[in-house]
């Protein structure tokens, strides 16, 4: 089922999701970036804000139009809500072990870009958890660090959403071509104030998204990445990247699929203890610690782990790539290290 919504329709969509008891999360402008936060209405969306992103560089800028989804991936990802940065697991005390039960939050995600939609799928494959209601925003405007097309994860949403919107602003106004992906999505769409979509609406939306595929800022080399990384574990490039890499862990933290956690105990002052987990990164030296020391101490080994896992061994472990091409790790790496460039260097046998 499809329809065309205007901004009021989008607002009604957010309103309807809220009335159904869901916490609606979507993009908002905060601290000079497009962040993810609770939406109370469509007015919270970053209308007219776009993004310039490059390696180690990100700036929001005013757009010429009032598009609300006209920005590429920001500093946060939906991982924050599906796999929170810190989470209590188990408490122990005189009465034994108990799981920490959090009040389940019924989330609705609005404005999920196709790369992130793919990421949600990959992440949930590993960490599980309830599926939120997802309103995808098809990508009509990729950013400077995007390469989802070359990862097969965009720019069009290929499923996993309840509703998918394609935003368009032209002489005919500001509107969203909406497609339902699930029964729940169709039912909701049915209740929204929109008009039925025409063949033309459909064609326009498709051509906008196809156009986006041609405007990706970057591309992953077209090769068997898994084989490439497996074959290059001893490549001199690793030591070279290590010269630029801070091992600060930013890339893994912003990556929408990096799932690693460390567990820790905390003791309260009355004899009880709590076991909890927090986001971890393979860039942390302690990550690989064994009695006697860490396995990966050099920056080169840690960078190799990250990239090889994302692009290579993820296939062995989970049957798919760990990268969706959202480009966050490129933009938010302070040093601007570019996973596509590093892959290309391996593929071409280049050492800087």
């Amino acid at each position, binding site marked *: 089922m499809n329809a065309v919504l205007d901004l009021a329709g989008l607002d009604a969509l957010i309103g309807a999701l809220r009335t159904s008891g869901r916490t609606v999360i979507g993009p908002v402008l905060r601290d000079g970036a497009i962040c993810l936060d609770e939406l109370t209405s469509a007015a919270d969306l970053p209308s007219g804000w776009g993004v310039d992103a490059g390696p180690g560089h990100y700036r929001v800028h005013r757009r010429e139009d009032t598009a609300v989804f006209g920005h590429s991936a920001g500093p946060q990802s939906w991982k924050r809500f599906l796999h929170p940065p810190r989470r209590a697991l188990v408490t122990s005390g005189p009465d034994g072990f108990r799981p920490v039960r959090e009040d389940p939050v019924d989330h609705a995600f609005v404005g999920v870009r196709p790369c992130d939609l793919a990421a949600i799928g990959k992440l949930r494959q590993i960490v599980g958890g309830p599926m939120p209601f997802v309103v995808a925003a098809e990508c009509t405007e990729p950013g400077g660090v995007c390469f989802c097309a070359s990862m097969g994860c965009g720019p069009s949403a290929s499923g996993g959403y309840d509703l998918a919107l394609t935003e368009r602003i032209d002489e005919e106004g500001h509107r969203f071509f909406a497609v339902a992906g699930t029964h729940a999505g169709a039912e909701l769409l049915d209740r929204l104030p929109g008009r039925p979509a025409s063949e033309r609406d459909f064609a326009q939306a498709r051509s906008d998204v196809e156009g986006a595929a041609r405007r990706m800022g970057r591309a992953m080399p077209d090769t068997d990445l898994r084989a490439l990384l497996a074959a290059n574990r001893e490549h001199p490039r690793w030591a070279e990247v290590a010269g630029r890499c801070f091992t600060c862990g930013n890339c893994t933290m912003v990556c929408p699929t990096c799932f690693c956690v460390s567990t820790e105990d905390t003791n309260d002052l009355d004899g009880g203890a709590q076991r909890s987990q927090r986001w971890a990164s393979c860039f942390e030296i302690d990550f690989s610690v*064994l*009695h006697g020391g860490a396995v990966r101490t050099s920056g*080169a080994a840690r960078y190799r782990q990250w990239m090889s896992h994302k692009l290579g061994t993820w296939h062995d472990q989970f049957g798919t790539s760990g990268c969706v091409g959202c480009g966050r790790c490129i933009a938010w790496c302070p040093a601007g290290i570019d996973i596509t460039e590093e892959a290309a260097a391996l593929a071409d046998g280049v050492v800087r």
Partner: protein
Amino acid sequence: MKPGDWLPLPYRVSRRVRETGDVVTLTLAPDGRSLPGFLPGQFAMLYAPGVGEVPISVSAIPGDGTLVHTIRAVGAVSGALHDARTGTVLGVRGPFGTPWRADGREDLLVVAGGIGLAPLRPVIRNTVARSPDRRLVLIAGARTPADLPYRRELDELSTRDGADVVLTVDRAAGHWTGRVGFVTEPLAVHPLDPDRTTALLCGPEPMMRFCARTLLDRGVPAERIEVSLERNMQCGIGSCGHCQLGPLLLCRTGPVVGYHVAEPLLMVKEL
């Protein structure tokens, strides 16, 4: 995250046997619900409440619902487990990981270093109990004679027909009249039939590499050499990411791995 996966079951220490100066064997009895059965080579995540949780293999499988673990105190958590008195409640999750593939009829060669004997002990016991005619060679090493666990059992084993027990230590001390040196030395010369030998190795990584090399040189194919690998493990269910060794997630596709898979990975520094 499925919280159930992270929720330990309470087990009570029902027996505590001192093996060496820093090694004990604990028998744990379920304090309520019990976990599914473990296979030799598999491990549990043992939780010392408020201190931490670490992977520990089963060192015997009594079959009565109890779990037996042999623990060497090396740090805070293993130290707390080692110190747990009878009656102490510990948390247990499991079973996790791959078992030793040692059910065939061919000769069994078991090579262990130090506490590495613990995960291999169930295989030895099963073989003795179920396949009395199967040839069994055990080569075990330790730093000093006092660090060799299960001494009585090993002595008993050595009297069994068809079982060769070779013990060696890095440094002799006390009344030791046996061998001094690395396990690779007896391994290089001990009679074995490479065409019908399955080798199981457990111990420090360099030791396993040297032993595997020796066995390959003697003609045992990599596919019939198994090693038990160690990496940092925090979940046991493949979702914390710490135990990666290249393509492997050792809590799931390990810890027991065929040497044909392990070798190329172990050759890479800091993988």
